[in-house]
């Protein structure tokens, strides 16, 4: 188990290092911000002086080292446009993204797992078929189209829910649902497949023949085995959630970090962008590590393989 985790942690460290290299290269390839700071033009001597002042005339390796120490100290620079501290720009908007994302994750788990389990245990029930039909749709349609559909139906046709911003708790409903639908679909589809796989194992037969009730067999012998692979899927889904939130925030004009990122791309605001890259990568890497750890704890077979 220690060996298993050590390999995972080493891989996570390599990933983060690579991300930092990519962020650094992106930042440097984008040129110096001086043309931007002095739109009226600057002389060659002035430019050289500025480069010397900010250490841009040194070798790349040395600059990379400086960059790493900056990052380690939480110093990610300022936006080229608003001169805001990059870190604060994200900190201000992160709560909205986390709230919508967290609620969507919760909704997806609460609906997706029972739906998939139900569909596997009662394969021919009409409810299971309708549910999996919806899962099929939700899995295929991208977030932004789902969002537009929800706005049109609930916002403009039925006129029951607000469609822009996050002013009141009601404002959260549509964005959370839009973000959750593809995840519900993915979890339900995966859960159903994992359950069907678990049902086929001989120990389920044993459990039935020793006289356990259907409910006991389902809970103790099928669902438990099916949830272990589900942990991995959840890890992937959380990474997908970060991507999805960028689209959902654009559809519903939410004040989350998605807008910051898109604006940064359009304005070529590289300090802002590189922080986004590092932050997203860090979240994904940590979630993956956590998933690996959960996996080891949930499945004794991996622990023993060690």
């Amino acid at each position, binding site marked *: 188990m220690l060996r298993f985790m050590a390999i995972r942690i080493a891989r996570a460290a390599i990933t983060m290092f690579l991300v930092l290299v990519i*962020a650094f290269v992106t930042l440097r390839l984008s040129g110096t911000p001086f043309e931007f700071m002095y739109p009226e033009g600057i002389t060659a001597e002035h430019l050289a002086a500025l480069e010397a002042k900010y250490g841009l005339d040194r070798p790349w390796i040395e600059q990379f080292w400086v960059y790493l120490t900056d990052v380690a100290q939480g110093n990610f620079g300022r936006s080229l446009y608003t001169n805001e501290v990059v870190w604060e720009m994200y900190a201000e908007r992160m709560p909205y993204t986390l709230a919508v994302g967290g609620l969507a994750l919760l909704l997806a788990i609460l609906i997706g797992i029972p739906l998939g389990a139900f569909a596997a245990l009662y394969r021919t029930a009409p409810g299971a078929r309708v549910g999996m039909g919806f899962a099929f749709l939700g899995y295929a349609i991208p977030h932004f189209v789902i969002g537009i559909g929800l706005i049109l139906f609930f916002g403009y046709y039925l006129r029951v829910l607000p469609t822009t911003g996050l002013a009141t708790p009601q404002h959260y409903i549509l964005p959370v649902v839009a973000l959750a639908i593809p995840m519900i679909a993915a979890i339900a589809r995966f859960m159903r497949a994992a359950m069907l796989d678990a049902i086929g194992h001989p120990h389920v037969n044993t459990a039935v023949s020793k006289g356990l009730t259907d409910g006991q067999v389902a809970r103790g012998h099928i669902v438990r085995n099916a949830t272990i692979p589900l942990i991995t899927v959840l890890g992937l889904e959380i990474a997908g959630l970060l991507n999805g939130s960028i689209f959902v925030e654009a559809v519903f004009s939410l004040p989350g970090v998605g807008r910051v990122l898109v604006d*940064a791309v359009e304005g070529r605001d590289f300090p802002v962008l590189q922080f986004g890259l590092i932050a997203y990568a860090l979240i994904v890497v940590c979630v993956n590590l956590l998933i690996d750890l959960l996996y080891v704890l949930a499945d004794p077979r991996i622990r023993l393989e060690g």
Partner: protein
Amino acid sequence: MAELSAPTARRLRPDLLTLSAAGLLTIIALGLLAPLIAPHDPNATNLLARSQPPVWMEGGTWPHALGTDNIGRDLLSRCLYGIRTSFGIATLGLIFSAVLGVALGLLSGLGGAWVDRIVMTVTDVFITLPNLLLLLCGIALLGTDIWVLVLMIGLIRWEAYARLVRGQVLALRAEGYVEASRALGGSTTRIALRHILPNLASPLIVILTLSFPGVLLMEAGLSFLGVGVQPPTASLGRMIGDGRDYLINAWWISGMPSLVIVTITLLFQIIGDALRDRIDVLADG
């Protein structure tokens, strides 16, 4: 081989897979033929016919069967050209990523233990990188040219193909004819190109079909955010994004391209599920 023994009548009955494939081919044909069949120039504006509804609604006219957008461009023509743009970018991006993935997979499978270890570590690391953020960085750095989109999409999608190819290579390497070729003095390059690559074709085609909608939606998503295909080029994602501001008065500006995208992805999904049921290539990839 099970189909061969099935009754002929059952084989001839059009199943969901055949119908979906036919539908998809029709859509692709519509996109390819867009310059010939589009009723209007996709970029021609007509200020007298702004935000006209589709023909089945009050105020709709046949010349603009799917309605017009906020500056009077014909939505049917723009959708047709949008299909062309989206499929074009997705296809080129997919080809690029497949070439990259196959090359790295072959290298990993045939290049010896150390090469294998390095390529596979890179692949593992690449899987955990946030794709969308990398795309956004690349676009910010290189601009929103169509070729940049193709390049970036290719660069972030290769790892699944590398894994598949490596797995297949490791399995094929044990085959008698590969060993025979090696015994006869065939070089690694020769074995890769003559004996292994031809055997990779069918699993590769399946996995490419399965990943096509993902690539298509990636382009559509970027264009939707406004950082993909730039105006005035028609792109389904961009049309949906631009129509957002007019949802309340003219839902069809976003709605029509949305319906096109939903149709395309659903057809792909049906085909993908059917293929997955028939050949489980992903499991041993």
